[in-house]
């Protein structure tokens, strides 16, 4: 039997193939790191970003609700107290594509961002800090979703 989730998964694969063959004209976007946003797991995202192996760190914090009632709007915060962060990433492990957002940090802003994400199901969420010296630090937190926000 074809479950809805399976169908979704397959359509994502097809969409990926289409995108790869250049069938999605709106992806003709030079600066947009499509490979990273198409990647399914934390490891794949980091590979696409050209970053090394991640290390769990208590200097990176991820904030979010323990239980999100509405998966379409899950407030998440990612921050690090360490100086020299280059990029902050927010990821949701079990979303069709794991990467939510990349923030390029400059000296003029604090490495502390808040935004809202869509989550398809209960999952671990990650905040990843890519440091100037090439270190990759992360923190994770489990968010339970009672109503998914990705499907139709």
């Amino acid at each position, binding site marked *: 039997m074809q479950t809805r989730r399976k169908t979704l998964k397959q359509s994502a694969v097809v969409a990926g193939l289409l995108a790869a063959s250049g069938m999605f004209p709106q992806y003709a976007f030079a600066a947009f790191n499509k490979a990273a946003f198409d990647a399914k797991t934390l490891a794949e995202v980091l590979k696409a970003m050209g970053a090394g192996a991640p290390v769990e760190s208590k200097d990176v914090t991820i904030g979010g609700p323990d239980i999100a009632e509405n998966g379409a*709007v899950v407030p998440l915060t990612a921050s690090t107290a360490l100086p020299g962060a280059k990029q902050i990433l927010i990821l949701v492990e079990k*979303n069709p*594509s794991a990467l939510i*957002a*990349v923030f*390029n940090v400059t000296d003029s*802003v604090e490495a502390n961002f808040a935004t809202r994400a869509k989550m398809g199901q209960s999952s671990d969420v990650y905040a990843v800090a890519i440091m100037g010296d090439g270190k990759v630090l992360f923190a994770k937190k489990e968010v339970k979703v009672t109503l998914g926000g990705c499907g139709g």
Partner: protein
Amino acid sequence: MADPMRIRAQVAGDKATVRVLMAHEMESGQRKDAAGKLVPAWHIAEVTATHNGKPVLTAEWGPAVSKNPFLQFVVKGAKAGDKIAVTWKDNKGDTRTDEATAS
């Protein structure tokens, strides 16, 4: 042209907390329409922020950021009266810039 953003920049000490609410559909590309066809993804892909004209933040977003996205960030060395401008660009090439004065 898309609807305007709501931007608020609050100064506390030498920092300004900027909160932005953008108006955008943020279609995920996972949903299907009534005919069962996938609705193509339509989302904000790039966000940039400037402080008195100087770029301070760039961000890349995927389709998994929620509808009418919210963004909060902290600008260092900002004082009341400074101009904070935010620009977004979506994956269809549409773009919008709005500016707010820190207070």
